């Protein structure tokens, strides 16, 4: 190790790893429904897409987790986004591609993607 820059490079590389292990209160939580209904409807690629996108952008304030069935199986894959201000946004019929947009618009820029939410889809 000949310079501080080398040390910093390793630290940057490890950032995502550390982020997974931080369950702080001020984080945005993305929860993917992963019960049988969710998995059958294709929740796994959605989850993978969220994890990958969050890691790629190095979003330290986002944690991606999974949950069981929330009871609206016809709308699976369902993804809920909890922001630190206590708000919940429910996205339904998600795909890997839609996930990328949610990360960009909602998680990074703070604008929920209304057209994917249960309110618009259920109409």
């Amino acid at each position, binding site marked *: *190790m*000949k*310079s*501080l820059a080398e*040390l910093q490079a*390793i*630290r940057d*590389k*490890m*950032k*995502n*790893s*550390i982020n*997974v*292990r*931080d*369950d702080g209160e001020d984080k945005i*939580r993305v*929860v*993917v*429904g*992963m*019960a*049988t209904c969710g*998995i059958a409807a294709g929740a796994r690629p959605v*989850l*993978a897409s*969220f*994890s*990958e996108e969050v*890691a790629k952008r190095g979003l330290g304030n986002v*944690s*991606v*987790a*999974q*949950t*069981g069935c929330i009871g609206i199986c016809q709308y699976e894959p369902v993804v809920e986004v909890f922001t630190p201000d206590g708000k919940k946004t429910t996205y339904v019929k998600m795909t890997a591609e839609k996930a990328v947009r949610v990360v960009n618009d909602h998680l990074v820029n703070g604008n929920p993607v209304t057209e994917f939410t249960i309110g618009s889809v259920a109409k």
Partner: protein
Amino acid sequence: MVRSHVLVCGGTGCTSSGSHQIIAALEQEIKKNGLEQEVKVIRTGCFGLCALGPIMVIYPEGSFYSMVKPEDIPEIVSEHLLKGRIVKRLLYSETVQEDRVKSLNETQFYKKQERVALANCGVIDPENIEEYIGYNGYSALGKVLTEMKPSEVIDVITESGLRGRGGGGFPTGRKWAFAAANDADQKYVCCNADEGDPGAFMDRSILEGDPHVVIEAMTIAGYAIGASQGYVYIRAEYPIAVSRLQIAIDQAREYGLLGKDIFGSGFDFDLEIRLGAGAFVCGEETALMTSIEGHRGEPRPRPPFPAVKGLFGKPTILNNVETWANIPQIILKGADWFKSMGTEKSKGTKVFALGGKINNTGLVEVPMGTTLREIVEEIGGGIPGGKKFKAAQTGGPSGGCIPESLADTPIDYDNLLAIGSMMGSGGLIVMDEDTCMVDIAKFFLEFTVDESCGKCTPCRVGTKRMYEMLSKICKGNASLEDIDKLEDLCYEIKAGSLCALGQSAPNPVLSTLKYFRDEYIAHVVEKRCPAGVCKDLLTFEILPDKCKGCTLCARNCPTGAISGTAKQPHIIDKTKCIKCGACMEKCHFHAIVKK
């Protein structure tokens, strides 16, 4: 992409309760479910709650599973990791509430803790240097080597008020300053990892959970005092700690964090491990250095102090593992941050190993000044079986007993000395009403007699005589005069011994004499052991009005000392009774008492 981390405790406690089998089962199940790319299993150091091991924490949820068995693994993998449903029945019971799962930091055990020395224990993979670096590791070393002068490093440590965590409590900065002031062609930095107190395991846990912190801190000290070589003296009975430290040293060398020209600063430093063979006296600094030199581990008189003439006759500093574990954070966060914790004369935090009659056996780190009662009753979860808290022993065989009446004393170096105990390395053994204080004193003396190196007479012969007197008291053969003689001998040994082992050996006796003299007197005068421990003073009796004559006791007595006819009260023949207590355990009617 990894989205979930499963942390499994790989400390000695959880390893002995089978955490390696858990890890093997986890890896197998994860593979079976095709989750290898998504879930990472990490073997960490100690979480502290050893009583509930094996421990497993799953992130990002932060679910704390306790007492996990290999047969639980398929359920955890398929429910939690695959479907995202937390397996509530395996969660640490205190975290489960009706409406939500409490986070770990809200539980009684962790709420009052402040983790500085243990910051990375149970958080990182100790065998992966990049994880340590990810958690800010080696940035204190980077800062020191690129921005600070050696004298500035010493100033920060002095200013922080850090005192030696090994027992004596000598100011660390002053120790470094002495060694820095002595000119020599070669100086040494040593780490004392010869943790020998019965019941203490904080140094082991730090080395197992965060070995790089010790390497980083010792390198910083090397720069501060002008040393290029360090030694870690660690007991061979700590195989996991030894192997993780060796892995860490090898990785640090590979990454150029040990060796030549670290961070391009021109500063060289390297480390080697020396194994101790299990002698308690080698935890004493001069004996430790004598042992590193390859001689028999015996202490030598001071002065000259190690800072002047230490290892191989060169200026040397020796600090304990826990002391080292504080250094990098003091450098990064500053002396003021460290000073903000603790009491006036004892800054920072202290790790205690909780053991004995306590519910949450394990490792806790609290700010100095926390009271014994908070540690025992709140963090430690109190005494099992609803028994009464009687006393606690701090500092192992060198410390003293603190009675329940003084449990509200804020714990720091000076308060403990004032009440006749000492900080020691931080072993904290809790005793309840069933503990005989004379017996406890005898237990510690037996340990010191065994471990006395034999070099000086007061310790070699004196502790042996003390042990004999205590045995006499426990057998009921002593007179009141013997108690006075015992007390006198204590002061002689304290004054006359060469090293801390002998000087502190009488502490368990002196403190129990001070706070529990009535128990000594009961043994001598009434020939009675109030706690019902000393066998020679016990008699077992059957209460005729409670005995139903069920014959259960007679059938269980190994020496045939109980006789009687069915449905009639039985009696114990005291000449045959060996006081094993088997009858008392078996009796359904509480008809047998010991006096």
